[in-house]
């Protein structure tokens, strides 16, 4: 995988590029700010990244988590912030990451989101993208796939997850106020999860080609 700085840059790029789209998704069943919130956070991350020299993946992810916590706000700030902090703890002191560590980081991130948000899968949240992604990732590993392929499988599962969010009622987050009326709409937070996974996949593939 490319270095962690490039990875975070890729996350920032895709989130900022999709600011409007994410906000529109949130507008339909939330309060029209998810893209704005996330873009604000990743703009701040970009600024910090410019001054980051360490190759310690854990240190960089911790910086990302803390920056998101202190700039995003809303529901997604604490959730993504906690997710990055938990992943950071796993990667502490490391400069390269293998499949196993990547899977563990994803699991820890999901655990952070669940601790903080008290949601489970099927409530129309980020978890509906992340949990299937994690399962697909580990399934790929079990089948002996390399990191780019595992990420690709995870991204595809997240894509299916966001489709799935259209079919269910929200019972967590702001969309839960809508009850049945939330059906038919895609969850914004699940979508930002999917976008980040797809950016990582693209980066991993490109990195292998270049290598």
């Amino acid at each position, binding site marked *: 995988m490319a270095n962690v700085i490039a990875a975070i840059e890729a996350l920032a790029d895709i989130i900022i590029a999709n600011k409007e789209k994410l906000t529109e998704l949130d507008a339909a069943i939330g309060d029209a700010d998810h893209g704005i919130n996330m873009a604000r956070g990743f703009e701040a991350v970009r600024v910090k990244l410019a001054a980051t020299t360490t190759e310690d993946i854990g240190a960089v992810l911790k910086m990302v988590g803390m920056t998101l916590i202190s700039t995003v706000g809303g529901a997604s700030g604490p959730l993504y912030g906690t997710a990055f902090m938990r992943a950071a703890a796993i990667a502490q002191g490391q400069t390269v990451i293998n499949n196993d560590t990547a899977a563990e980081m994803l699991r820890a991130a999901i655990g952070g989101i669940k601790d*903080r948000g008290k949601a489970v899968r099927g409530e129309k949240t980020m978890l509906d993208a992340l949990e299937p992604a994690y399962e697909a990732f580990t399934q790929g590993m079990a089948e002996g796939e390399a990191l780019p392929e595992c990420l690709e499988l995870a991204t595809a599962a997240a894509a299916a997850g966001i489709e799935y969010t259209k079919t269910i009622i929200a019972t967590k987050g702001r969309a839960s106020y809508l009850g049945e009326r939330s059906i038919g709409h895609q969850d914004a937070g699940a979508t930002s999860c999917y976008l980040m996974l797809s950016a990582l996949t693209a980066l991993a593939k490109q990195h292998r080609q270049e290598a």
Partner: protein
Amino acid sequence: MKKVINNAEQVVEEMLQGVVAAHPQYVKRVAGFDVLVRANSPVQGKVALVSGGGSGHEPSHGGYVGRGMLDGAVAGAVFTSPTPDQVYEAVKAVDGGKGVLLVIKNYTGDIMNFEMAAEMADADGIKVAKVVVNDDVAVENSTWTTGRRGIAGTVFVHKIAGAKAETGADLAEVQKTAEKVIANVRSMGMALSPCTVPAAGKPSFTLAENEVEIGMGIHGEPGTHREVIRTADETAEHLLNKIFADIALGAGDEVAVMVNGLGGTPLMELYVVNRKVAAMLAEKNIKIAKTYVGNYMTSLEMSGFSVTVLKLDSELKELLFAPADTPALVQF
């Protein structure tokens, strides 16, 4: 989007500067943070109250910082819960040694961010307690949802818990009083038109020329349903009946009423609504101890209103009538 602003990204910062410029006798800024605290903070020997949330609900919450109400208010981005570090700074700035009560509106984001701040303050040894306001009866309060939203009833929590804190009560007592308000306050709103978050640049929803949204949230969250606009009386009746269905109120009970404008509604119309609300309460022989009509918890320029009813006992009534001196609410 037509707004009197300079820059959508700077609007909260510039608003806060404008508030401090207008009301130096009431508030000061915690430098570097989007936090307003009383000019004389920290007030020693008194439990401090901190509230906050996304901006765009002005005068909530900065307008209620002052004697008899809040000690500090944290302003998030428009309609976005403030971050934990901001809340934490507010707590540190107002703590006068008797602890800090966080008044949180029941939104996932607010709860998580305020909780993280409380954890940070705890670690510093500051006593922190929390209450969560969930007065909006438009939302079903089931275990299958995140529960009801906090809307205009929050202002009664600020007023009454704030007055309790001025009596010198300790943190547990102030929290208990706040919880009593929360247990007895119900609200419901409706919107005639949407509002536009400056950074989004366009309205988050649209309503047809003759359509209104009943049960609208204060962030443009959809309500229970849309309908063709009815008369003020019919609409007020619908909202009030939803409230009556949720809280036992009968002859001889005493209440406080708030008819709250969402930002774009003429005061004239709020008073037309209040006429009906007062008449309906009179019909049930419910006594109105005090009525507030105006823009107390807004949604930027949204047009519409909410009705709040707070059931009083003698403690709540006395505290409701206690003096307050803040930019947005003054009473002798």
